[in-house]
């Protein structure tokens, strides 16, 4: 995949979008939260990209640096992978859903909501997936604590 063409595509949507400076195995794009939905639609629909598969979606909690949402896309036609990174603030983390672009995103976004508490805008069925419905808090956040947990003895 030509990175220049890819970069031009995403710059067109939002000039702040860029190729990620981080060391990653895949080509990684860092894009803004507001342009996520349009970028994703372009990745899926545009014939010379056609990333028709969402391999995985997860989040990383960087505490004061907010949440990092990671989408890994794959094109079964061109056999290429692409990573999309979005940084969102830790307080009131809201992001548009991509479940209307890839249906597989529905369950994966529910999992991230379950464990990190990321709110997905326009998600059709955003509720707990693995934990009980009345669970308080989001346990994969790094500052999560509850009465059941034992602190390490060291």
């Amino acid at each position, binding site marked *: 995949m030509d990175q220049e063409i890819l970069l031009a595509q995403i710059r067109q949507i939002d000039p702040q979008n860029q190729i990620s400076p981080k060391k990653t195995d895949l080509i990684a794009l860092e894009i803004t939260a507001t342009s996520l939905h349009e970028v994703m639609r372009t990745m899926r629909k545009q014939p010379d990209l056609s990333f028709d598969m969402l391999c995985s979606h997860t989040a990383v909690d960087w505490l004061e640096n907010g949440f990092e949402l990671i989408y890994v896309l794959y094109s079964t036609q061109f056999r290429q992978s692409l990573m999309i990174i979005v940084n969102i603030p830790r307080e009131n983390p809201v992001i548009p859903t991509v479940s209307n672009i890839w249906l597989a995103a529905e369950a994966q976004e529910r999992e991230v909501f379950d464990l990190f508490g990321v709110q997905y805008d326009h998600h059709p069925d955003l509720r707990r997936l693995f934990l009980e419905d009345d669970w308080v808090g989001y346990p994969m956040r790094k500052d999560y604590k*509850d*009465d*059941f947990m*034992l602190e390490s003895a060291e």
Partner: protein
Amino acid sequence: MGLVAQMDQISGGSFILTRMDEVINWARANSLWPLVFGTSCCAIEMMMATGAARHDLARFGAEVVRPSPRQADLLILAGTIVKRMAPRLRTLYEQMAEPRYVIATGACTISGGPFVYNSYTTIRGADQIIPVDIYVPGCPPRPESLLYGILALQKMIKSGESLREPGIRKKPVVSELPPGVKLEDITLELRQILGDEGITNIPEEIARREWSTGL
């Protein structure tokens, strides 16, 4: 209980009853039907120990693994038990017909293992939910350890419950195979433990344990 009442009237009836206990316990010990309860990596090791040919569990009469608690009398816990699984485990245990025996294999099942600290889900030891008879340590335990655990359970059953006091059983036994220890030493020690240790009342034990925390 009709049988017990009749035998009590025969002089020396207690002698006959003791023999009955022995026969019944012998039958129970040699036809253990385990219930499938594998939740993680220990289950793979357990399946190798029970199912495969090399460490054939059928030699000890415990190979008929049942998917239904109604048909099983031995619960082999293999794997981490989490908060959400705990009520289901308790239900399975209560559905099993008496007398029922429990073997806990592996570090996670015995104590929570590597997930003791800073885990929001892992139950710290299966004996917080149900009474456990045999603990088989290891991560996961070697097949030999599990077989040794089954043998220890068989010995426990054979010297265990009586018709007069069903549910009154010997205390839990730790089944571990330390290095450099001979089989005779183990046999001697085991006999001593089974003989000297106090007894436990299973129905009381069940009633004493609360349902899993926070549920």
